[in-house]
């Protein structure tokens, strides 16, 4: 029961904010002859002649991949520890602001631009302000959750520099840590009405060998509204760790485990992804990789609860086997419904 309960708890916090109602035509949107939003119409411009980024934007998973080689040992240790605790300390699971976390580019975000400032509004009702009034970034702003951001236009490209973060936020859902010395650079290009290209770079020399980041191609959400998604319960009461799971593990013979090794494919959040199951030192490991890298290459140890049911960082993995005990598919058990991944090889 505990396994399922934990899985419930973990997944509740990760449901994407796709809340919307039936499409209605909104005013001020360029349209094609058939009345649909014209996504390739020119980007609108503000009263100052700059591209106007105002709109509701939906982002893919930013794919901030884990890269242990680029992470200093103390960061890798924190990543390991946070996975062990099923990421319950993640700020958004604790009802706290996500700050510079890359996953804030996943899902919906509203941008509202004026000539002197740009507000970035998240659906958890947290927000940040980017000052574009010509001020300089302070050398050492007081640490805060959302940081201090200053933007400037280089032609039609908006370059945003941010600093002044506290150390309580993560850079991804996997728990990559940062120091107060973190600097973030974001580059925004609205190439037409429907598309916003974002490039984010994290620089934090005591945590990472070299700067790293991700690109997110965001798409306009026209004829709809963004609704609030309020965190009502923090993760403080979550129970269970990877050690608890290991203590409850049953022994499964190595030849049984070997029949599960393979690559499985399925669809998650309209995105194809694969689960790559390997066997390492008697331990099954699931590596989840998607076209949009929904799971960023995280390695999930699979702890056996029966010959066919495993726990992987709070989720259930049920292998479906043929009469010879060879897996034909694996079902990932989540609160938003089980997902079947069919064996590809």
């Amino acid at each position: 029961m505990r396994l399922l309960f934990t899985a419930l708890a973990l997944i509740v916090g990760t449901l994407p904010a796709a809340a919307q109602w039936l499409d209605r035509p909104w005013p001020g949107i360029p349209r094609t002859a058939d009345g649909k939003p014209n996504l390739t119409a020119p980007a609108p411009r503000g009263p100052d002649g700059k591209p106007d980024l105002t709109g509701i934007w939906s982002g893919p998973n930013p794919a901030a991949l884990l890269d242990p080689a680029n992470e200093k040992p103390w960061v890798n240790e924190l990543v390991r520890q946070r996975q062990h605790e099923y990421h319950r300390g993640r700020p958004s699971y604790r009802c706290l602001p996500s700050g510079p976390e890359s996953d804030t580019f996943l899902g919906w975000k509203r941008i509202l631009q004026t000539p002197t400032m740009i507000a970035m509004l998240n659906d958890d009702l947290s927000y940040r302000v980017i000052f574009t009034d010509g001020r300089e970034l302070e050398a050492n702003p007081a640490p805060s959750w959302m940081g201090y951001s200053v933007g400037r236009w280089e032609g039609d490209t908006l370059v945003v520099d941010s600093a002044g973060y506290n150390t309580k936020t993560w850079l991804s859902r996997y728990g990559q840590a940062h120091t107060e010395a973190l600097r973030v650079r974001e580059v925004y290009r609205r190439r037409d009405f429907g598309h916003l290209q974002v490039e984010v770079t994290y620089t934090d020399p005591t945590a990472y060998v070299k700067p790293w980041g991700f690109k997110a191609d965001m798409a306009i959400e026209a004829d709809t509204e963004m609704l609030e998604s309020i965190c009502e319960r923090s993760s403080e009461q979550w129970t269970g760790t990877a050690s608890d799971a290991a203590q409850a593990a049953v022994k499964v013979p190595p030849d049984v485990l070997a029949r599960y090794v393979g690559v499985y494919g399925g669809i998650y959040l309209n995105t194809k992804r694969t689960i790559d199951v390997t066997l390492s030192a008697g331990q099954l490991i699931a590596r989840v990789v998607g076209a949009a890298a929904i799971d960023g290459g995280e390695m999930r140890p699979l702890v056996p609860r029966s010959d066919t049911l495993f726990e992987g960082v709070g989720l259930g993995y049920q292998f479906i086997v043929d009469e010879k005990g060879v897996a034909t598919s694996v079902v990932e058990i989540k609160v938003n419904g089980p997902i079947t991944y069919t064996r590809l090889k």
Partner: protein
Amino acid sequence: MKTIAGILIVTASAVCASAQAPAPATAAGCPLEPVKFHACALPKMKAFSPPRTPDGRPDMQGYWDRAFTSQDIEEHKDGFGIQAGPSLVIDTPDRRIPYQPWALEIKKDIVDRFISPLASCFPPGVPRQAIAPASHQIIQSPGYLVHLLEYSHAYRVIPTAAGPHAAGVVTLWQGDSRGRWEGNTLVVDVTNSNGLTWFDNAGNFYSDAVHVVERYTLVDADTIHYEARIEDPKVYTRPWMMVSVFVRNKEPGFELLEQACHEGNRAVEGGQSVGLKPYPGVTNIRGGGR
């Protein structure tokens, strides 16, 4: 003991308000007493020609402070952690909220039974948003007016050119706002409340059927007249109106600070330890549920 703990919990949410300077006695040359202010401000609002945004709307942008707190929107005296204040209700004979009898019974001990929604760090909802602790920033972009709140680091978006409200099944902490400009006044129709927020720390409440019509009007360059017409046939005997005031914050270099309300917040446990329960909404209290 329970009552004192209840007051403690309720006042915990008002802490960030105490950093503000004491409010002045007048704004736009009008006394800061809601009925008097309303009467004094109406002719000034008609005569004032406000600055305009590039798209021709009254420009309300900038930093604003509330003139009244959300301790109790009815008249109240000085108390433990509470500063005396006038009733914000302007149009009932006794200037009290016209609760139906059963609702008045619930109001009597609501703060002794339930944890204040603000102590739980929930968004303030409407109309409390207008009197919630700390400063506001208003920004405008064609088709939108947005409040950025220092309190709880939350925001509220008011679309001014949008279609109809969200379907009734959608219930929201901040409600669903639909704004329109009527001359120099921003009129905002708010529905779809989840009914889990209060007006104030005194536990004045509405249900999920509440319908609020807000009106924001500049009285002069530094003062906004705020009016909310509240209608909730489940709870009140008649619709009623409250008035508040936003005063421009002119402190040089002022910026909103952030408040990560949940950080270190132990008010909920404190309330639970003396038997207070999360506020389940008045419909559930009346129905005996939860």
